[in-house]
């Protein structure tokens, strides 16, 4: 939107805003499509490596890197079939629903932190489409919606296999949303905010500031999160909705050509998004294991150019982490056998859910007994979070009313009162 | 400005000349009087040209200024600009009530042509009163009339030769053969045009009354054009007699005006006084709203004096000479006026005049004649019983508006509201194509009355104009259909669009216009604008008077029903499968002389609400020039504590926005229902008819008005004469005979009473309780959806009660 204001002197305002909006949409779309294309190629390569094969080697040189475009062209030229028994309107629209929702998740994901402790959110320069107050919550809500397209597609196909697949998908995704939500709540609890930008910035510094290494419970939570995330995105070993050996191809049975591709892009988009979320929540987001940017002075304190350079670095970091997450999921897919549906539900309700609850309680207890300790409670060096927060509060910048967890009730009340006074100062 | 009276006067007299010519030489004009048509058409077209010239003259003398700040969206957004600021300032200045300097009053062109007689200080003249409203009416009337004259060439061509009337069977069992009456038809049309234009141009209320009666007699002639048909002659009689009832009230109003104001003239006029000097004397409007009183309504001196005539007589007796008495009366008259004397006479005058309008405009309870008037030829229905004559009532209310007190306006609003609602309900079920249109006309006239009663002078008059165009169009289209199919019954039509594409499409345009179709908040057909004005005014009125908010809701419901029955008509006529093979095969598109007027009127009903590009010229703005001074700011009733809101409130963007939304929503609902029932046949009309069996019965019997009048007025008259005859024959004998028989009866009655009554009383109580239980049992139907509906009804009722009475209580605080 800032860009639009530069354009306004030259063209009429509404056109400027429209243009900039379209450009931004296009950028986002490109990212997702590229991710999907690369993932498709990667999947072939990874699976080949695991199965001791070479994978695609012919199309476009030695690594077969033109395989995805070639596949895309093949799929685009296929006939777009609609079964006679299908509910035509829903059948046609379902892939787009799925894809649009998977795209919408990207609205709230920050790609780099920008000016970490800026007083004014307008000047934070974080790399987010829409910086939301409740970004974590938003992403959870929207990523849960993705199943909607699948159910529609499964129902509308008018085929038993598709319907079975869709029903399985619904049951699975709605069930796994609960432990996944519990896992997400844990970093939120530690950070005291649901704003992803703030959460990422609180993990800046060395790798022991990552929430993954905050305490033993968060470490365990991360693995539960990964399990649930895999199930949530319907990847093997939880790919029951499209189990080839049982349901032909599940909800995808009746789809072909372009619409099938769209479904696939939605799946890869969701995988990438949920990996990026994991990276931000547990793996420090755009902060590398070693704070190279800070050491080189590439921060916003040293001017805008340095800040942007640091942000580019951070973006690469986050992208690498998210990609690692995707590759990890592929690795899982090609090594583990598929579960039975009852096993899937058992994993969710009998293992993941209780474990996540225990982790929640554990993190609570840990924070009450050992508040502010990093790196398994050992705390090498002072935690930057507290320091910075105190600073900003002195500047009366008001980083919001963060709920801080403290052992002593007296201290907690004092903390509140401090923050309240802070609020008053602002007004 | 002597050109205007000259132009309009000529335009007015041309049809009279045509009438006279046809009267004398009609049957000898061409073959079977064909030339009569040309004479009449030439006269009315010339009148139209003169009217258009007059309009140009008027506009060049009083150009329309840029719209004021709040009246349109463009000005609203331009408020940032410096130019708009001045405009805005001027506007606020004007609305502050400083009518003397800032606001431009456009004086009407008034004067007399001829003095019929003078009686002391009072006199009766033939005069004119020309303002923007007169000019616009002239333009509209001559235009519609021209179209209809041309149309009639095609429609009435059968009258050029020998006619066999299949609807009249003679005693010999044969159908009636008679000579064609082509020239006579045009002769009546010319007479009508002359009378209508005279009614519009009239400079005093007496002249209005004369032409009022003349248009009435023209209507009588033309309804009874097929005089040999029993139904036609009955309808003509009915129209005539029902109108007399209204005219009776009007005469009372005239007497009140004459007594109270001493003049019939609308505008101020010059007159020699006793010393022979020329002095200006105030007309009706100046007396009711003197400039000295800031154009606010007050009882005229004459009425105050009349109300206090006893006391004045006393003063005159006591004082020594006349001048002294005069002085004393002058001194006390303001005090009396403040005490409310004379105000009652103002109400009487207003109600009386309105009575006449009720009759002519077919308002409740005198609306019964208009549907029957459809016996006349269709061009007549279009011209007289839709576009012009019946609108004359609305015109008169608009013309007499300055004299109406808020109480009279409330009566007008209520009458209008009742009319619009019951007429719309009748239109929902009628199957005769012309009757649907007739009910629609009554309903739309009710709309206009309602708008005027709401204080929306502009809204009501604007609707009068747009309605004239699209209703004339609709009638002519229906005439085209009837001409092609030789039947009025819609159930025998269907699928005619393929056979008559021009008629079908122009009629669709008419339906869209009357339903108020448009793209909300952006653009629409003419009806869209005028209906929005009315709904917006209603919204403001409802906010000002929660107690009378019912009126608004009924008007909104009326908008929905309008859309429903119009599209029902169109779908039944033009879409679907042909229901009567014979009729369908026989149907054909009409001749060009009938189609050209259709196209002209269709264009007018699309564009008449629009602004002429690159100018400020638009119909509402032109009419705004004629808004009576002093009425813009609304009024407060002193008697019953309610408010007539100022009209400019309704032009505020917020109100207008929601009014448009509501109007559009209702029109859409009507359209969707009509489509569901008659277009796509998703719903079955018979199903709905069964569900609302009672309502259907009431609607199809036209709310039993004819039956009721038959029972209340006609039968008793016959019955009383019967009784007297009967009494004469058997009266006294019967008494003697029966007193003896009565005694025996009494004894038996006593016995019967003892057994049947006393005993059964106790039985009845028990049985009643039992039956009540059975009845109440049915309330628990177990139908979930019915409960939901009842819940919704309860909620709506609760909101209504809160809306009206709680707000009412708040306003009292």
């Amino acid at each position, binding site marked *: 939107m800032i860009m639009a204001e530069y354009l306004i002197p030259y063209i009429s305002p509404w056109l400027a805003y429209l243009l900039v909006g379209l450009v931004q949409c296009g950028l986002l779309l490109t990212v997702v499509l590229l991710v999907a294309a690369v993932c498709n190629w990667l999947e072939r390569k990874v699976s080949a490596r695991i199965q001791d094969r070479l994978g695609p080697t012919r199309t476009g040189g030695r690594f077969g890197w033109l395989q995805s475009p070639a596949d895309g062209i093949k799929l685009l030229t296929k006939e777009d079939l609609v079964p006679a028994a299908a509910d035509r309107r829903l059948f046609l629209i379902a892939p787009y629903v799925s894809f649009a929702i998977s795209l919408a998740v990207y609205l709230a994901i920050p790609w780099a932190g920008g000016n970490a402790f800026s007083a004014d959110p307008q000047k934070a320069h974080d790399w987010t489409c829409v910086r939301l107050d409740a970004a974590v919550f938003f992403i959870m809500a929207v990523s849960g919606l993705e199943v909607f397209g699948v159910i529609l597609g499964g129902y509308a196909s008018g085929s038993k296999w598709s319907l079975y697949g869709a029903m399985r998908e619904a049951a699975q995704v709605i069930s796994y949303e609960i432990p996944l939500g519990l896992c997400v709540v844990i970093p939120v609890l530690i950070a005291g905010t649901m704003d992803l930008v703030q959460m990422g910035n609180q993990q800046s510094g060395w790798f022991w500031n990552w929430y993954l290494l905050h305490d033993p419970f968060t470490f365990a939570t991360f693995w539960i999160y990964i399990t649930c995330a895999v199930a949530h995105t319907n990847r093997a070993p939880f790919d029951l909705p499209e189990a080839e050996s049982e349901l032909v191809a599940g909800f995808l049975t009746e789809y072909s050509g372009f619409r099938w591709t769209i479904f696939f892009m939605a799946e890869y988009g969701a995988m990438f998004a949920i990996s990026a979320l994991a990276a931000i929540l547990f793996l420090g987001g755009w902060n590398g294991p070693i704070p190279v940017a800070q050491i080189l002075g590439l921060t916003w304190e040293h001017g805008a150019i340095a800040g942007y350079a640091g942000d580019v670095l951070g973006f690469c970091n986050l992208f690498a982490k998210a990609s690692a997450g995707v590759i990890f999921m592929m690795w899982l897919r090609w090594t583990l056998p598929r579960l039975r549906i009852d096993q899937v539900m058992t994993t969710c309700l009998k293992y993941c859910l209780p474990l996540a609850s225990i982790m929640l309680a554990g993190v609570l207890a840990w924070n009450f007994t050992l508040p502010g300790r990093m790196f398994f409670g050992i705390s090498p060096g002072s935690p930057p979070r507290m320091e910075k927060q105190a600073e900003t509060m002195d500047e009366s910048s008001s980083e919001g009313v963060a709920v801080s967890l403290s052992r002593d009730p007296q201290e907690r009340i004092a903390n509140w009162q401090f923050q309240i006074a802070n609020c008053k100062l602002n007004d | 400005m002597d050109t205007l009276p000259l132009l309009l006067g000529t335009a007015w007299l041309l049809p009279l000349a045509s009438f006279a010519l046809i009267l004398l030489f009609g049957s000898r004009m061409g073959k079977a009087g064909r030339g009569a048509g040309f004479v009449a058409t030439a006269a009315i077209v010339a009148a139209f040209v003169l009217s258009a010239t007059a309009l140009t003259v008027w506009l060049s003398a009083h150009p329309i200024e840029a719209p004021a700040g709040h009246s349109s969206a463009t000005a609203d957004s331009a408020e940032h600009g410096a130019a708009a600021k001045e405009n805005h300032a001027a506007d606020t200045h004007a609305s502050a009530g400083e009518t003397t300097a800032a606001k431009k009053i456009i004086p009407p062109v008034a004067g007399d042509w001829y003095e019929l007689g003078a009686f002391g200080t009072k006199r009766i003249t033939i005069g004119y009163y020309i303002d923007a409203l007169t000019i616009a009416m002239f333009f509209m009337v001559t235009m519609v009339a021209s179209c209809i004259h041309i149309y009639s060439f095609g429609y009435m061509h059968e009258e050029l030769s020998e006619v066999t009337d299949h609807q009249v069977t003679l005693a010999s069992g044969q159908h009636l053969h008679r000579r064609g009456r082509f020239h006579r038809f045009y002769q009546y049309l010319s007479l009508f045009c002359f009378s209508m234009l005279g009614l519009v141009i009239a400079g005093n209320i007496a002249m209005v009354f004369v032409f009022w009666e003349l248009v009435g007699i023209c209507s009588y002639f033309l309804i009874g054009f097929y005089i040999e048909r029993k139904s036609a002659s009955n309808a003509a009689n009915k129209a005539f007699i029902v109108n007399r009832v209204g005219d009776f009230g009007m005469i009372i109003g005239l007497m009140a005006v004459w007594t109270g104001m001493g003049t019939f003239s609308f505008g101020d006029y010059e007159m020699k006084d006793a010393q022979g000097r020329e002095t200006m004397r105030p007309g009706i409007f100046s007396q009711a709203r003197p400039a000295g009183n800031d154009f606010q309504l007050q009882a005229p001196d004459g009425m105050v004096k009349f109300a206090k005539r006893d006391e004045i007589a006393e003063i005159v007796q006591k004082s020594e000479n006349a001048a002294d008495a005069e002085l004393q009366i002058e001194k006390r008259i303001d005090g009396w006026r403040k005490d409310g004397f004379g105000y009652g006479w103002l109400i009487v005058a207003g109600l009386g005049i309105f009575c006449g309008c009720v009759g002519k405009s077919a308002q409740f309870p005198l609306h019964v004649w208009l549907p029957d008037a459809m016996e006349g030829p269709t061009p007549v229905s279009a011209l007289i019983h839709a576009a012009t004559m019946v609108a004359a009532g609305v015109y008169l209310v608009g013309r007499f508006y300055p004299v109406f007190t808020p109480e009279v306006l409330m009566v007008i609003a209520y009458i209008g509201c009742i009319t619009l609602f019951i007429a719309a309900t009748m239109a929902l079920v009628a199957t005769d194509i012309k009757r649907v249109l007739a009910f629609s006309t009554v309903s739309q006239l009710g709309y206009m009355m309602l708008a005027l009663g709401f204080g929306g002078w502009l809204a009501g008059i604007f609707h009068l104009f747009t309605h004239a165009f699209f209703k004339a169009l609709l009638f002519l289209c229906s005439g085209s259909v009837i001409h092609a199919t030789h039947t009025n019954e819609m159930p025998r039509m269907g699928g005619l669009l393929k056979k008559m594409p021009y008629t079908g499409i122009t009629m669709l345009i008419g339906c869209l216009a009357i339903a108020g179709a448009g793209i909300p908040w952006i653009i629409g057909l003419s009806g869209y604008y005028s209906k929005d004005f009315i709904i917006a005014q209603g919204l403001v009125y409802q906010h000002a008077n929660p107690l009378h908010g019912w009126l608004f809701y009924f008007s909104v419901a009326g908008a929905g029903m309008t859309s429903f029955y119009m599209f029902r008509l169109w779908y039944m006529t033009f879409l679907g499968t042909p229901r009567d093979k014979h009729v369908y095969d026989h149907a054909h598109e009409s001749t060009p002389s009938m189609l050209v007027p259709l196209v002209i009127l269709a264009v007018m009903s699309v564009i008449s609400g629009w602004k002429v590009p690159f100018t400020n010229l638009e119909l509402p703005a032109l009419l705004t020039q004629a808004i009576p001074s002093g009425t813009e700011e609304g009024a407060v009733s002193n008697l019953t504590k309610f408010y007539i809101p100022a009209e400019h409130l309704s032009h505020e963007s917020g109100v207008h926005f929601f009014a448009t939304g509501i109007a559009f929503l209702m029109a859409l609902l009507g359209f969707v229902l009509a489509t569901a029932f008659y277009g796509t046949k998703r719903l079955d009309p018979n199903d709905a008819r069964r569900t609302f069996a009672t309502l259907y019965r009431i609607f199809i019997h036209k709310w039993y008005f004819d039956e009721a009048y038959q029972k209340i007025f006609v039968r008793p008259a016959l019955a009383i004469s019967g009784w007297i005859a009967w009494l004469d024959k058997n009266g006294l004998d019967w008494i003697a005979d029966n007193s003896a028989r009565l005694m025996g009866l009494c004894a038996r009655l006593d016995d019967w009473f003892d057994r049947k009554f006393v005993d059964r009383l106790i039985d009845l109580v028990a049985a009643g309780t039992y039956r009540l239980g059975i009845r109440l*049992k049915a309330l628990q139907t177990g139908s979930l959806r019915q409960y939901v509906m009842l819940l919704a009804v309860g909620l709506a009722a609760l909101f209504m009660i809160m809306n009206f009475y709680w707000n009412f209580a708040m306003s009292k605080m």
Partner: protein
Amino acid sequence: MELLTQPIGLSHYLVVSALLFVCGVACMATKRNLLGVLMGIELVLSGANLNFVAFGSPYLQSKSLGMDGQMIALFVIVLAAAEAAVALAIALNYYHTHATVDVDKADELKG
């Protein structure tokens, strides 16, 4: 056009919420499918929620309900979820006993 250039007022929200509410009522009143009725209820509740949020929004009115508006809406959402759970359980039970979810068939206790 003025709708596009001027900020939105409270009334606009109220009108939208009224329309949603009314659609919900229509849905409840016309659907014979029990689940359709439930959907109508959801619509009604979301219409009511929109009302609360609009009255609580500081962007529409200088003297708004404040946080109360959002809070009540939040509770309504939660309770709606609870209501849906119970209603679905009832629907399931009803289906077990009647082999249909037509509410018009559920009139065995009628008078």
